[in-house]
């Protein structure tokens, strides 16, 4: 949010962007659009009472998940907080399992046990989806630890919000990351607010939040999130530093959310002005800007862009149908997935009482 008026460099020419094929560039656009369409559908059915709990929308921030995760190879892992749908879809989870999870159905990615904040796909190197602010930051460190322990050249991307930087566990993680030289890239998705609290009211800092990394002798950078090319260019540097040198980095990506903290946030338009929101939508929307960009580059036309958008909306609509028609978990399902040993009915599971219900 802070860098909107900083002098703008063109990152299209950076090697990691230049090396993309036209299809790959269009795919970035497609991914961002899919995320947005998925969430728009979710919003609609949340408001229709089809889901419970919280729904934290990512709309406005799509370039962050899509840009950074597009850089991942087979040994790169990632983990985030509760605003986790974009990361899920970008790593390759399908809309059906994600929408069904929101609907609390047993076909959901977490069988309806996790809900909106808890999407996971370990087979796609995606470790969730976590609800306690900054609670995932030591886990992200652990992924990096595991990679280094196993001698794999890869890195861990660990996302958190601008409000999460003031949790103790995050700071402990930064120190350990630097001290142990672990291949983790922390990415602050700075959307300017933690619920109704502006960044200025929650954090004391000098130039920016990422600069706190200096205290741990760690590299850092700030990224304009409205430009997916910039997101990729700068994140790539950090990821390479992690993979090749086992050195962590703290990145701060300036971005914005258009909706409230969660859909239940009745104050969404009270703690920020309608003008501020409108300005972002008009001038900084990562999808709109990238669409223009690709049209200029001759890789998209208005028609092909619209077709992508339409296809994504259709896919989202189909996922709603899938979710609606899926079965709910049963009462018996409540008691599974607690212990690995009992789920697999191992010898260990036969011994002693594991569950305590009168």
């Amino acid at each position: 949010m802070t860098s909107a008026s900083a002098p703008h460099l063109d990152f299209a020419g950076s090697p990691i962007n230049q090396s993309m094929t036209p299809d790959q560039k269009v795919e970035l656009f497609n991914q961002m659009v899919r995320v947005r369409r998925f969430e728009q559908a979710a919003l609609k059915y949340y408001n229709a009472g089809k889901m419970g709990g919280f729904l934290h929308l990512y709309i406005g921030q799509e370039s962050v998940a899509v840009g950074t995760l597009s850089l991942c190879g087979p040994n790169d892992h990632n983990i985030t907080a509760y605003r986790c749908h974009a990361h899920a879809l970008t790593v390759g989870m399908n809309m059906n399992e994600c929408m069904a999870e929101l609907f609390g159905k047993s076909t959901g990615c977490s069988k309806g046990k996790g809900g909106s904040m808890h999407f996971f796909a370990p087979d796609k190197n995606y470790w969730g989806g976590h609800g306690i602010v900054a609670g995932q930051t030591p886990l992200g460190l652990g992924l990096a630890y595991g990679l280094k322990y196993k001698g794999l050249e890869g890195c861990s991307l660990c996302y958190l919000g601008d409000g999460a930087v003031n949790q103790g566990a995050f700071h402990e993680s930064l120190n350990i990351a630097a001290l142990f030289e672990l291949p983790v890239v922390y990415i602050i998705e700075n959307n300017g607010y933690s619920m109704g609290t502006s960044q200025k009211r929650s954090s004391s800092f000098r130039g920016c939040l990422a600069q706190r990394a200096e205290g741990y002798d760690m590299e850092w950078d700030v990224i304009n999130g409205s430009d997916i090319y910039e997101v990729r260019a700068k994140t790539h540097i950090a990821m390479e530093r992690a993979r090749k040198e086992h050195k962590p980095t703290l990145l701060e990506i300036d971005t914005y959310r258009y909706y409230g903290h969660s859909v239940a946030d009745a104050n969404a338009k009270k703690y920020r002005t309608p003008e501020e929101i409108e300005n972002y939508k008009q001038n900084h929307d990562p999808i709109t800007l990238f669409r223009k960009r690709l049209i200029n580059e001759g890789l998209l036309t208005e028609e092909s862009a619209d077709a992508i958008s339409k296809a994504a909306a259709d896919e989202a609509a189909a996922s709603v149908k899938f979710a609606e028609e899926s079965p709910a978990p049963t009462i018996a399902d409540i008691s599974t997935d607690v212990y690995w040993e009992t789920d697999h009915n191992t010898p260990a599971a036969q011994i002693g009482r594991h569950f305590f219900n009168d």
Partner: protein
Amino acid sequence: MSRTLTFREAIREGLDEELARDPNVVIMGEEVAQYNGAYKVTEGLWAKWGDKRIVDTPISEAGFIGMGIGASMLGVRPVMELMFWSFHSVAFDQLVNNAACVRYMSGGLINVPIVMRGPANGGNNVGATHCHVPEALFASFPGLKVCVPATPADAKGLIKAAIRDNDPVYFMENVLLYGTTGEVPDPAEGDFVIPLGLADLKRQGSDISLIAHGRSVLHALAAAETLQAEHGISCDVLDLRSIRPLDQDAIIKSVMKTNRAVLIDESKGFGGVSAMVSHIIQENAFDYLDAPIKRVTTIDAPAIYSPHVENEQLPNPRRIVEKVLTIA
């Protein structure tokens, strides 16, 4: 004369009265001021009392709760909101060491007059990490007090007692009760305070004692209706209200009358307030029991998200009726 207030309004009225009574009372927490509270319990208080008395904090529970504890040692009386009580997990050290032990370790030189409050319950589809039910956990630490109201009047009377208490009091609310309504005495009729440690017999019966706290009390009352109407079973419904101090006399008295007890508790089955109450009953009313004490607790797994089955994981009137029928 009393008015009908929501549970939320009743707590707010209690906070407001205590803010007026004692200039050392300060309300702190995430989003409690300008945002009016994540669950609107503190709505309007910042507008009325201003920045000094109603304080928004960063998302740093260990930091701000520890700060409140430190300030309380100097005579400030912080009433701190955990947006969810479940977030106690990131501030546990401050809650169980600094708040609970400093008086003891100083040989009584210090006391920590804080109140911690916020929602603590399952049932609102927010999943395992947000649905901890920590009343038994904190009651197990000597030095702490814990209370869990079930009605608007109790909520108001108890929050006022909590704020005046010179020991740390952990006050647990239930999100699903915030919108419920009830009669609350008019402030014009005088200060309405309910002491900690006093249970309330919310229904009189003769065949079995249903002992509960928090939202489970409402389930117990509903179950008692069904049991009376459909099975002719007459239930005492005892609302503990306060977990520590605990009204042991009221518990024993009820069981001595009915000779049977079902305990209803949103905790998971290993432990919980109900395990403790069960032990106390059998220890103190052994010869009066005609059947084993049974419990209705949350099905023993982390809290499930799915709205389709979440209510079945929790104690509910149907499960209580079924359990009562096994021993009555």
